[in-house]
């Protein structure tokens, strides 16, 4: 988690000029939100599962670790995505419990049918795991913009775990959803975990000389 001192410092600097009454009335809420997230993080150790059995959790975690694998950077496993999914299935994604449990049973069947001697997805090699997941991937086209407004529950095990894994990897780590532990998901995609920034923001605005006036327009545009 990012340094609280920095956040506080930024917030106070950003607030210069704001009435002290406003700060007094809002500061505790801002602080308590951060504190709550911290407590939730602490309270979840040692982590335990509320929905999954430890065996189920190991299987789902193995699937999510192929959706966003650990490479030279952290993946779903390091982000604690499994804890996010465990909570999701008891909260906003309740309607996907059946899909997950039925999908696990189906996965089990596929494991034993495809790889003789194997009993668990989590015991397979990454290549074997990918082979099974490719068969489950229905290649749903990207919904494009507005993806998050679509609340239609997936009835595909793979789609459900895929979406929950992505969410668990990239959710605001300050939320109480137990995902994106230590903001590792945000760091992987290059999102600084802070919530307050000062320009310049990136490469292209670092040498910006300031806005220069336009030359006058020559007649009506639109040819």
């Amino acid at each position: 988690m990012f340094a609280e001192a920095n956040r506080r410092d930024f917030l106070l600097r950003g607030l210069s000029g704001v009435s002290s009454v406003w700060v007094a009335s809002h500061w505790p809420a801002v602080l308590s939100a951060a504190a709550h997230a911290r407590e939730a993080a602490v309270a979840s150790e040692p982590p335990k599962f509320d929905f999954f059995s430890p065996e189920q959790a190991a299987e789902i975690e193995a699937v999510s670790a192929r959706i966003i694998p650990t490479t030279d950077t952290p993946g779903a496993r390091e982000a604690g995505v499994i804890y996010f999914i465990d909570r999701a299935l008891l909260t906003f994604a309740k309607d996907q419990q059946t899909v997950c449990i039925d999908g696990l049973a189906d996965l089990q069947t596929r494991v034993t049918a495809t790889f003789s001697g194997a009993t668990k997805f989590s015991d397979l090699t990454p290549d074997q795991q990918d082979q099974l997941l490719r068969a489950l991937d229905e290649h749903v086209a990207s919904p494009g913009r507005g993806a998050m407004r679509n609340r239609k529950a997936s009835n595909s095990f793979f789609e459900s775990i895929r979406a929950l894994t992505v969410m668990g990897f990239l959710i605001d780590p300050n939320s109480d959803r137990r995902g994106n532990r230590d903001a590792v998901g945000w760091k992987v995609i290059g999102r600084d975990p802070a919530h307050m920034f000062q320009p310049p923001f990136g490469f292209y605005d670092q040498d910006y000389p300031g806005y220069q006036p336009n030359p006058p327009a020559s007649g009506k545009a639109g040819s």
Partner: protein
Amino acid sequence: MNADTPTPKYKTTDEVDFVIVGSGAAGGILAKELSTNGFRVVVLEQGPYLTEKDFTHDEIKVMQQDLLTNRPDLQPNTFRKTPQEKAKPQRALVYGRLVGGTSVHFTANFWRFHEIDFIERSKIGAVAGSTLVDWPITYADLEPYYTKVEWEVGISGLAGASPFDPPRSKPYPMPPLPVKGGGVIFERAARKLGWHPFPAPMAILSQPRPGRAACMNCGFCLGFGCEVGAKSSSLAYAIRAAEKTGRCEIRPNSYVHKIELDANGRATGAVYFDKDRNVQRQKAKAVILAANGAETPRLLLLSANKQFPHGLANSSGLVGKNLMLNSGGVATAVFDEPLNDYKGYNVSRVLHDFYELDANKVGFVGGGGLDARFDSTPIGFAMGGLPPGSPRWGKAYKDLLAHNFTRTLEIFCHGTSLPVEDNSFSLDDTVKDAWGLPALRMTYKDHPDDLKLSTWLAERAKELLDAAGAVKQWSYPVQEQQFAVHLLGTCRMGSDPKTSVINADHRTHDVKNLFLCDGSSLVTSGRGQPTLTIEALAYRASDRITHLAKQG
């Protein structure tokens, strides 16, 4: 709510001066102005009263669970392209469902309409397949109110930077927000092409104001509520100002479903479900609907009675019709180096070179503007922000997310929607909401010129991205719209009671003490950013209504 504010609690049996339905862009300003002018006001808002401390960057809560927006689980919609079709259930619109309305979560692009938007019909003549007409007021009538909005609500911008801007009586009250990487890329490429980019006018504070911080560039802007009051929503300014008068009560969780008339044909107040779904009747001397361009006409249609069997104030038959959504395409690109445009507000540069196109040259009516933006938050980006055909899982997916998230820029096109009478909000004949009321049904098929315009603007966006040296760019073909964010034109203003629903004072032609003011009042769609015009109309309507009320 501020603890030090003596906000009144009126009884439903108290006949207040005004009941206002809706607390968004228009409702908030009407409440502030009318209570400041000495009137007793009750604002009925269907959504909750959330404040800065309730806002969060939790994408699931805000975007997927609609913390701030209309709820498809409680308020289903249906959609069809033409009145001949049977509408199918599908989410057809998003609007803010909380105190402050859509102004709480919007992008905060804040363009004035130009002179042409009020007089386009006279200037270009009749347009086949469109009910395009002039407004009964002009840009000059509204100019003082545009200025009033900009100064009171708090708008950042640079006056005179666009050579296409209409005349203004005052500059912006504060300088533009800091440029973003995407804005720099946009500005350089546009200048190369001979176009005239300028700092985007935004309803976001670049300098602090009493009780409100300047933007801290958190990056959770479009779709989210601002925790520090920098976004100039009705919640951040007008609602608080209204409450400070001591004459305005904001009553949340109050879902108005009927306006009743007395024997003399005057509105008696508003009938609503309270949070426990008990029916309440707030009495008032006059009623103002500012419930947005979907819910205002729906409420009139729900209020049909013996005198108005086709909907209250609907003698014209135009309530709900002439819906305009604004047109536009999108082109997206990836650049070599990190822009980090996830930081900050969404849009830092705009251009209006194509605001007023020559129909004889381009072959269609209308015009538009382009903006440079990145408005994706992390999950939304991972779900829908990669180029078509990208991997969806595994190392290649992860690598692409890691590369593209900081390097992606979108060019958004915003343009005209021509009014078409069949495009509408109406009551669905089968689907009901959670309160048992007919669901909103949207009927929409873009005028052919709107589609041509969108495609034309998207070509300009691609041209710009080429000039900018994008490594990779893509766009999707322009399609007919089935999803509404801008809700415009559905109770249009006009002088003739046969062809409009309200007059230039926002008074309905049919009911003397019933006024409508929100996106539904607009006669034309402008070029894609209606909120400033809605707020300017609300300031003007407040003056007109105050004048009329003082006359009795």
